[in-house]
């Protein structure tokens, strides 16, 4: 009797083990091939290389410059009306963006605010890549008539008045500014533009250097803004060790499978920041009422002409640097209405989407990629995916796993 019970229990145990084995074999995580696992891990934060050096900015990794840049980032005195700072649109508690279709500074812009985390890995900045460094990017909004709305001598005076000591400890002595106009710069305001034209060239260059250094300090701060870990990262890390069960739901895993497979999302949204840092025409509609937007076709020309680019006189780069700019693709039909691939980290938590906030929800974004509408100008690279309703839901579920973990990414700046 005892023996029969022992046999029975061992049979039961065997059955249990068998069942457990079958369950493990059918668990989604264990169905990844070696190549799929490598692809998934290539998207994880663990795979993010160290910040690339920026030879055009010698203070890029100087903590004193980052501290100065942090102060400037939040300083509303760097604006025409004393109310706009970088942080007005790049809200630290909102992934450094502002949740609205078109950014609003002293006026209304024509583009969606981009987040900042991880941007130091990007060779070109803005939706059209019209600058080639974080520091030259920071200068654009400062002079835009609808963003900060100010001008170069105004900002140089702010530095002399409020940041002299810190500035000089990082960049060396400020030029003599007292005799220079309070408002002057190559901006749309005719008075400031006229005053700038009237300044002797050496004075303009001296002010340009201060202006460039403002950008370099802000860039040093922005380099400290890193993407936060997500549930997806935990899953990708655990894949190798076999402890991934329970981190993502079945739907999320199915969405990940679509992301790297049928959905072809990974073509452009690749690497640990889920962007190829390149420019694509994906047939996003033009917003009625906004001026024609040529995207990269205009941006490539602008970055080449930018006096604050990597090859310009205010860059610290040496010979042989600036390969991104030197070998940039500047012509061709595919640049027309091509816009930068955004990182998908945190994207599910920051609608609306696209370069002018044209698409309000993630569901509509996925629908856009599934149907692949024709581009309003140029040619869309998309082809219809014909995703089912279930597949769309799964893809959206996966994208939400790229949101920063609760409490992460909310570090006080």
């Amino acid at each position, binding site marked *: 009797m005892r023996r029969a019970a022992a046999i029975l229990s061992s049979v039961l145990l065997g059955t249990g083990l068998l069942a457990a084995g079958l369950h493990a074999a059918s668990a989604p995580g264990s169905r990844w091939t070696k*190549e799929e696992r490598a692809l998934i891990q290539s998207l994880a934060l*663990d795979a993010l290389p160290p910040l690339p050096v920026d030879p055009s900015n010698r203070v890029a990794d100087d903590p004193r410059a980052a501290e100065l840049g942090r102060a400037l980032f939040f300083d509303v005195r760097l604006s025409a009306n004393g109310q706009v700072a970088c942080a007005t649109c790049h809200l630290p508690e909102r992934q450094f963006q502002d949740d609205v279709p078109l950014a609003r500074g002293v006026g209304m812009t024509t583009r969606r605010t981009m987040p900042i985390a991880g941007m130091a890995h990007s060779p070109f900045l803005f939706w059209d890549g019209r600058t080639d460094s974080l520091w030259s990017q920071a200068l654009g909004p400062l002079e835009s008539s609808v963003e900060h709305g100010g001008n170069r001598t105004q900002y140089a005076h702010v530095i002399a008045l409020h940041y002299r000591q810190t500035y000089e400890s990082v960049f060396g002595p400020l030029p003599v500014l007292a005799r220079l106009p309070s408002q002057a710069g190559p901006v749309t305001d005719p008075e400031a533009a006229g005053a700038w034209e009237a300044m002797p060239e050496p004075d303009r260059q001296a002010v340009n250097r201060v202006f460039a250094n403002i950008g370099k300090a802000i860039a040093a701060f922005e380099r400290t803004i890193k993407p936060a870990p997500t549930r997806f990262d935990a899953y990708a890390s655990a894949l190798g060790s076999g402890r991934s069960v329970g981190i993502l739901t079945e739907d999320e895993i199915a969405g990940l499978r679509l992301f790297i497979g049928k959905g072809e999302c990974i073509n452009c949204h*690749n690497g640990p920041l889920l962007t190829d*840092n390149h420019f694509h025409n994906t047939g996003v509609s033009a917003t009625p009422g906004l001026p024609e937007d040529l995207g990269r076709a205009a941006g490539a020309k602008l970055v080449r002409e930018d006096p604050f680019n990597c090859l310009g006189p205010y860059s610290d780069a040496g010979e042989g640097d600036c390969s991104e700019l030197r070998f940039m693709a500047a012509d061709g039909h*595919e640049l027309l209405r091509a816009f930068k691939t955004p990182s998908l980290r945190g994207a599910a938590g920051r609608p609306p989407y696209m370069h002018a906030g044209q698409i309000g929800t993630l569901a509509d974004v996925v629908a856009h990629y599934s149907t692949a509408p024709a581009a309003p100008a140029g040619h869309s690279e998309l082809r219809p995916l014909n995703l089912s309703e279930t597949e769309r839901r799964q893809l959206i579920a996966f994208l939400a796993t790229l949101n920063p973990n609760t409490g992460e990414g909310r570090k006080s700046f």
Partner: protein
Amino acid sequence: MLTLTPRRALLLGIPALVLAGGVVAAGAMMRSVPNGLDLALDKRTAGGLYKAAIAPQANPIVVGTMHAWTVTVQTPEGTPVKVARIGIDGGMPQHGHGLPTAPQVTKDLGGGRYLVEGMKFNMRGWWTLDLAIEGPKGADTVTFNLVL
């Protein structure tokens, strides 16, 4: 011959370019790469005027990273050729887009070898690299296939 170094690729977490003959599984999860794609990195030009070979200076090639290649041009018999110009083009035939950068020959390394800077592949899949060679025997072209 260049081969994938899985451990380093895995450590970097970034897919590496597989240049070994016939290994195209890497692209299988996206649009499938045509069967029988000629993956030779050393071949005759289309008109038979020259023999051209390409070799990346980075191994593995990391997606999204700027890197350089060496192009070697010889006569069909193997004598180094001094070329006047090498034009570089290419792209992804299945995606309908070109190279993300505009690579150029930046240095004559001697012995029919030329340095090409500014190469970048911004995604995995099937890429072509087209060389337009202008040399002493005239102009000729050659297309190489690469699977990332």
